[in-house]
């Protein structure tokens, strides 16, 4: 039997917000790269994939958290995977029932949510130790963070690669679509460019911080 959780987190805004920015699954911890790159060739696909993943994340997180005192430690990973696979099967059939077009566009990547490291990572690192309500909130935060990251890729790739946003044309008929951006290499390039931007911002902040503390030290 697993030992009692040592430290439980109280519910706070940070429980939710952490997943959005500070621990953003894509940009900061670099988990779940495969669906990120594969389905973000349009903004609609990105949102659908993000929401499907959020649903699985919340469902499996809550169930794992509810069962955390009953799952023996030795077989916990296998149990989590079975729980996750159950929810993915449900989402898979759900999307098939709601929109067949969307199902075709996302293809095998709905079923591949099972092997998305974000979900197993959350189950192991958070849901297995915390109470149900904080888990629910934290999973929602992580899910929205993931959706946000997917969207930021999907929007850029759709605008550059097809000249549209959510299917609506943005530019006149003269616009020559930059086709490579909706093809596989575009995924790598756009994600790389976002990471470059964040790196640059972070380094600039650090430099400013160092400069301002240096000035303060000189003034003294």
């Amino acid at each position, binding site marked *: 039997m697993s030992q009692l959780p040592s430290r439980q987190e109280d519910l706070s805004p940070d429980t939710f917000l952490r997943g959005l920015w500070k621990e953003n699954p894509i940009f900061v911890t670099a988990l779940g790269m*495969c669906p990120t*790159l594969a389905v973000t060739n349009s903004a609609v696909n990105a949102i659908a994939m993000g929401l499907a993943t959020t649903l699985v994340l919340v469902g499996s997180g809550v169930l794992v958290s509810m069962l955390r005192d009953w799952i023996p430690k030795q077989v916990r990973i296998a149990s989590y*995977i079975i729980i996750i696979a159950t929810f993915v099967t449900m989402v898979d059939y759900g999307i098939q029932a709601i929109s067949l077009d969307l199902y075709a566009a996302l293809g*095998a990547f709905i*079923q591949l949510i099972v092997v998305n490291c974000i979900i197993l990572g959350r189950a192991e690192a958070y849901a297995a130790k915390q109470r149900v309500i904080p888990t629910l909130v934290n999973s929602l935060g992580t899910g929205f963070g993931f959706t946000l990251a997917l969207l930021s890729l999907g929007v850029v790739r759709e605008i550059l690669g097809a000249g549209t946003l959510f299917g609506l044309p943005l530019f006149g008929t003269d616009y020559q679509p930059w086709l490579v951006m909706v093809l596989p*290499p575009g995924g*790598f390039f756009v994600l790389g460019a976002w990471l470059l931007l964040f790196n640059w911002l972070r*380094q600039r902040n650090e430099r400013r911080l160092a400069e301002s503390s240096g000035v303060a030290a000189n003034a003294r």
Partner: protein
Amino acid sequence: MHAESLTSIFLNAAIVNNFVLAMFLGICPFLGVSGKKETAWNMGLAVIFVLLVSSAAAYGINWLLVRLGLEFLRLICYIALIASAVQLVEMFIKRFSPTLFRSLGIYLPLITTNCAVLAIALFQTSREYDFVQSLVFALGAGVGFTLALMLMAGLRERLALARVPNVTQGAALTLMLAGLLSLAFMGFAGIGGSHG
């Protein structure tokens, strides 16, 4: 689909629709273990082995599930199967090459969550490959994965000696490189007929 020749299946999986660079499967180990050529090579071999074992087993399981009319359990069965296959490989490597076992480290159990392995099982089911076709498909995907991993490791070993701007350190640079490689592989598009 049944008429597809074995060569065409192999080339399609290995080069034209390369699993890593064109279909984005198995990106995590691709970014994680591509630092050194030797580790990349060993990782590639381990993945090929897991792919072959799980592809064969998935074929059997699917046959059984279809007979019993339990297709909705497919995903759960596949994932349990892959986890056991990885466990098998882990025991095998630990027994015969402890050095290799240490150098692969955490990435060995993580093959379970390598999308390429689950994708093989799902694709061979949806494309209705027979037993031999499935094995060839798995082998092709594994070879493609190893090829991409080796190319990347070679590039990164070179880059370790080069001076790159400060901002581009880490994952950003690797992703840009992967983009260029992927662009190069697009040149093969159309050689073997396409299906996504």
